[in-house]
């Protein structure tokens, strides 16, 4: 018989996963004196030695190309200097993709998860985003409204720190903001181009602090947020929520702990979490009163599907069969341009915080006669970035040749490029979902996910709208569009499904237990002491990037858990 080591201790709550959702749950629950065990499938994070924040390429022999030039062989897609985050492919932990589908699944295995490296764009959903079905008859409405979540957006922004400005735009609800650093020179030009066609272009809402906050110093504008911030001036759950929570004495972190199954009793109550301790390759169990799943939408779905019992033959809390369904990513399309007006500009430090200091929220939310539903926001790039491996290869490809002429042109054109990236809403469809692969397992013997994915006409039409918009903007600035124009054909130009890393919706919430796994508090309809605190519960995937809403929703869920525990209901 398999030897399983059970914890003698019964924790109040086991939180599985330490990203945005797990971080918020840990912060809120330990703050209320609740004892939490946190399972993280990767190692601990040590910012002072893991982060490569201010290094220049020549500080390492390989200049950032990685050992053996990994960059040149596509084996280092995030760059050498990036904060420890995760990978498209994890050794020994595969997933499969069904024939005819394309999907890439980025998974983190580190304390803090993807919050260590993410873009930190922090946009509230709009009021109408919570009732998409009511608005246009597609998808489903959320079981909560903007007003239900607004107080938690307030708490989240006030605590993690988000820049922005009060604008009064319906598609971009205002919040509690710190000042945003000023627009860069190229952004002034882009603002002008946007205003000519009535596209708003407003200060960026980003989880970076420009004033000291709760002992965290203000941003020092080195522009390297994605490498991890040694002064914790940007938000990462690891530095801002979890490591500080250790000081409460209420948190115990189990790192290298890969959750395998959530165990439940005959009454449909969760009793323990079974996990593989990767350090010893042994199976362990932690007993608890409540489980908060925050392993990332698809990993949480996988864990539920792998937690079968006679009471839940399709997986825990899945008698509705919706777990794994309604998988969505964000529609991504980027167009770059070379803008002669920027050439010869006095060079200056364009770092600021990383990414654009301005962005464009969706502007046609009230337009009825467009040929696709919903919308997108625009992220903006440009400036005199840090030269790195690959930085000038686009120019080399365009200019061609070699020698003095190539060197001259690169010098002259440096900083004269802009980039627009659309991030749009996908409509959930029946052909996009994940399920357990019937045969494949990972190195721990845990069945893995198999993905199915299909963009529909809605997304293709939206991508074409993005392309037209970006081309118009670039050309109105006198710029030349770079690269192939797309998508002229279906399957061309739109981002590979999964690669925007906004995959979500696979454990959705709702009022009807027949069509949702969780209620409005992200609590299992069928399992009252099970909660999900990542983006699994999302009913739709608005064009706002999910992280801030994960934080707000997880905060609301955690408040509810604390209250329910106090009342003795769970």
């Amino acid at each position, binding site marked *: 018989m398999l030897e399983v080591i059970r914890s003698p201790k019964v924790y109040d709550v086991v939180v599985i996963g330490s990203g945005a959702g797990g971080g918020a749950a840990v912060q809120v629950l330990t703050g209320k004196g609740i004892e939490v065990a946190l399972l993280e499938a990767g190692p601990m994070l040590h910012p002072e030695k893991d982060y490569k924040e201010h*290094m*220049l390429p020549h500080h390492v022999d390989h200049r950032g190309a990685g050992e053996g030039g990994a960059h040149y062989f596509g084996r280092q897609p995030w760059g050498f200097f990036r904060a420890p985050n995760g990978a498209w492919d994890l050794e020994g932990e595969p997933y499969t993709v069904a024939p005819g589908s394309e999907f890439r699944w980025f998974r983190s295995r580190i304390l803090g998860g993807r919050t260590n490296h993410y873009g930190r764009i922090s946009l509230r959903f709009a009021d109408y985003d919570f009732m998409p079905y009511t608005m246009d008859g597609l998808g489903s409405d959320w079981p909560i409204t903007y007003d239900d979540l607004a107080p938690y957006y307030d708490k989240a922004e006030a605590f993690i720190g988000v820049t922005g400005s009060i604008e009064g735009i319906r598609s971009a609800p205002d919040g509690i903001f710190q000042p945003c650093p000023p627009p860069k020179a190229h952004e002034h030009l882009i603002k002008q181009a946007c205003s000519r066609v009535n596209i708003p272009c407003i200060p960026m809402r980003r989880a970076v602090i420009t004033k000291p906050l709760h*002992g965290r110093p203000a941003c020092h504008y080195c522009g390297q947020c994605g490498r991890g911030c040694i002064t914790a001036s940007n938000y990462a759950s690891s530095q801002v929520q979890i490591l500080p929570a250790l000081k409460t004495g209420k948190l115990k972190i189990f790192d290298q702990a890969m959750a395998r199954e959530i165990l439940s009793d005959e009454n449909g109550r969760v009793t323990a979490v079974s996990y593989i301790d990767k350090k010893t390759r042994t199976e362990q169990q932690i007993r608890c009163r409540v489980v908060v799943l925050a392993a990332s939408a698809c990993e949480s779905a996988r864990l539920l599907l792998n937690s079968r019992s006679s009471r839940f033959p399709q997986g825990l809390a899945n008698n509705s069969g919706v777990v794994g369904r309604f998988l969505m990513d964000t529609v991504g399309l980027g167009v770059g341009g070379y803008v002669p007006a*920027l050439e010869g500009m006095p060079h200056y430090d364009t770092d600021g915080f990383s990414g654009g200091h301005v962005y464009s929220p969706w502007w046609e939310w009230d337009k009825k006669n467009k040929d696709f539903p919903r919308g997108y926001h625009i992220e903006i790039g440009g400036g005199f970035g840090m030269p790195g491996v*690959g930085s000038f*290869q686009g120019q080399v490809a365009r200019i061609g040749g*070699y020698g003095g002429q190539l060197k001259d042109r*690169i010098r002259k054109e440096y900083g004269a490029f802009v980039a627009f990236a659309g991030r749009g809403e996908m409509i959930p469809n029946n052909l996009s979902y994940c399920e357990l692969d019937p045969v494949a397992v990972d190195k721990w013997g845990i069945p893995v996910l198999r993905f199915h994915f299909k963009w529909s006409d809605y997304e293709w039409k939206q991508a074409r709208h993005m392309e037209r918009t970006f081309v118009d903007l670039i050309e109105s600035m006198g710029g030349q569009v770079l690269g192939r124009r797309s998508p002229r054909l279906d399957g061309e130009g739109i981002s590979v499904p999964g690669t925007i890393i906004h995959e979500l919706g696979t454990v959705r919430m709702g009022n009807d237990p027949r069509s949702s796994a969780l209620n409005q508090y992200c609590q299992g309809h069928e399992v009252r002491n099970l909660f999900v605190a990542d983006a699994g519960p999302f009913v739709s995937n608005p064009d706002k990037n999910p992280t801030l809403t994960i934080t707000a929703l997880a905060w609301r869920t955690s408040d509810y858990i604390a209250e329910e525990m106090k009342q003795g209901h769970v």
Partner: protein
Amino acid sequence: MSEPDGRQGNEVSRRALLQRIALAVASAGVLDLKAGQHVHKAVSQEKQRTGEYTPQCFNGGEYQTLQRLSELLIPADDQSGSALDAGAPEFIDVLANQNEELAEIFISGIFWLDREMGRRQARRFAEAAEDEQIRLLDELAAAADGSTGALIDFHSAPEYAGFQDYTARPRGRLGPGARFFVWARRLIVDAFYTSPIGYEDVGYKGNHYRTEYEVPQEAIDYVMKRSPLGSA
């Protein structure tokens, strides 16, 4: 960008400095720029090399060819030095020494280059006259870049980085040489611009600690005056 490299990162002092900065900022709310620059310097002491570099992967003749290619692909001019000055051959040797696949690309490519030059001039590439070297490189560049110029789709968004492929479409007898040319150019260009000489050549001004972020008015004025949308 011209700060001297120091031997080996001193992890302890670096960490101590960073902690001091964090504390100073937390209490005062502002960061002393000088103190910030100390950290910047401490962090820059990650790597240092003194004296002549001894190739680990390439033999003397091969390395000489890499040196010559580095001088020719990104040459010195009145503004800055060449890719040779920027350490491109050393960069390629370091990587090739860690990666057999890359070593093979370069060793076979250099063989090809020498044989082709030998066929034309009875000399190895590195020992041929400059105009002969340039003639061959011109032919390879033309074969590599093709009539359309563009070799790759350029996606500036970082999330696409892993999906870029460097696809040359050379045709005919020069094919293998053109393929090698693309590899050599790619690594030599990268080596140049990831060196202090390269940063200075393009005029990179970033990677600093600042207490406030400001955009110079003259840069804004310059751009807006040149805007085809009319001055704002």
